[in-house]
């Protein structure tokens, strides 16, 4: 299978907060089916970068070109708002660090999963519900809990529900912001296992922002290391983690606690 165009192509993306640099001159290509990890310490600009790509923040300069289904590569930043929002609920997905940011806490799990379907025009209750049940099972939530509210779920389940809700429309690109943050290690392991399965099975491309090197070791094909808003090193995950070249990457890798 030969792919001609990258799915997502980021060119010289910059965003500053007044005189302070958020991120600067970030460029990379993401190919279909590929998972790229962005690591760095707090304040290194990785979340700013993600928000700029996903359209939550307006960058100062640069381009984010996405290979749309209908019209081929298009600069997301110059799209009209309806187009961008349509993209955000069909081909894109965004998994927040805190499930409360990504879920509707006031409505049932089934409605949370069904929301994106209804947003793109599904108007058949039985079909929406069947798809919601199917997706709950795929993220290992018992189907009989479909009418419970996310509040009644544990943190790990909430995070899995958020993933189900995002993947139900079959997106091609998933942005994840610290998807395992705030979960204990055994729950993290299950979640990572699940995500790895789904990514491989659905052929998803993903951009994962995290400070947890173990997460990218498991999920990411390629890695970008950021510091002070700049990309200081990038390469294949194993290569960067096992043979770090930049002083900061070496520091990052050696800072991981060994059990």
């Amino acid at each position: 299978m030969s792919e001609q165009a990258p799915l997502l192509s980021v060119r010289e993306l910059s965003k500053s907060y007044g005189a302070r640099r958020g991120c600067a001159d970030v460029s990379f290509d993401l190919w279909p089916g590929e998972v790229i990890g962005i690591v760095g310490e707090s304040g290194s600009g990785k979340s700013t970068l993600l928000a700029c790509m996903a359209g939550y923040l307006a960058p100062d300069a640069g381009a984010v070109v996405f290979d749309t289904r209908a019209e081929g590569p298009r600069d997301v930043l110059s799209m009209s708002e309806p187009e961008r929002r349509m993209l955000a609920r069909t081909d894109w997905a965004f998994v927040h660090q805190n499930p409360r940011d990504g879920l509707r806490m006031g409505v049932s799990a089934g409605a949370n999963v069904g929301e994106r379907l209804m947003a793109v025009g599904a108007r058949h209750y039985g079909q929406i519900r069947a798809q919601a049940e199917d997706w709950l099972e795929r993220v290992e939530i018992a189907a009989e809990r479909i009418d419970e509210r996310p509040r009644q779920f544990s943190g790990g389940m909430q995070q899995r529900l958020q993933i189900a809700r995002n993947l139900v429309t079959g997106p091609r690109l998933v942005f994840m912001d610290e998807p395992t943050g705030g979960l204990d290690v055994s729950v993290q392991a299950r979640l990572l296992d699940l995500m790895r399965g789904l990514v491989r099975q659905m052929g998803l491309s993903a951009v994962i922002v995290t400070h947890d090197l173990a997460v990218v070791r498991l999920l990411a094909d390629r890695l970008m290391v950021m510091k002070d808003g700049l990309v200081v090193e990038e390469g294949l995950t194993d290569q960067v983690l096992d043979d770090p070249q930049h002083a900061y990457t070496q520091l990052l890798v050696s800072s991981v606690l060994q059990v």
Partner: protein
Amino acid sequence: MNDYNFAYLDEGTKRMIRRAILKAVAVPGYQVPFASREMPMPYGWGTGGVQVTAACLRPDDRLKVIDQGADDTTNAVSIRKFFQRTARVATTERTGDATIIQTRHRIPEAPLSEGQILVYQVPIPEPLRFLEPRETETRRMHALQEYGLMHLKLYEDIARHGEIATSYAYPVQVSGRYVMDPSPIPKFDNPKLSNCPALQLFGAGREQRIYAVPPYTQVISLDFEDHPFVATKAPHACDLCGDDGSYLDEVITDDAGRRMFICSDTDHCNSRRAAGHVGALTGDAA
């Protein structure tokens, strides 16, 4: 009572409200902001409806005011008196005779005709309010016609109750574009919104919004393909006039569990009784 301008509001205010009404008529279902005034009654008593009525009234108009269908309840009586005193317009209880009808929570049973104006009192004009609390976001959703969220509420109803349990303020889509809150009318009345010969104006005083459904405009109640919209009412006939097709109020008559069902539209019930119709309890309750 010469201390007030005709219909209480000053001419500049009425002109401002009329401009908002014209815009609302031009964009059916769109909530037009207007500079709602303090009225000599509390919010929730129909300050929005009163301002719209005041802006529409002419000296030769005949006004009818109903509250939950009834002409004789506090809200209806006080608003009717208000305009009798400040505008000296004629009033009526007959739906067919009125040129302007201000209503709270009902549409009259008698069919409306061209030239009539129906003014609704609206507590919360934003149908998406309880689903998305941010006003900036709901406005954007209206602008982009993103109404998936509205169905989320209906989905929750079916998931919890097995059917769409929303029984009043049932969301509608006007002229294929804006989703609108029809004010807390029972969903029994929803079909009457559509293709109505009269002009329908909605005023929300506290929320400072006016919206409209022009005559002969298509209004569709939202639903699912496998759970279609159904207009419901109590499965009884009126105990006073015997009508089994009108919307009913349930009235508890003693502390031994006895109750009766009567038309919520008093004008409809009275005219049927005057025409000789009788119900199951005619005579022994009244």
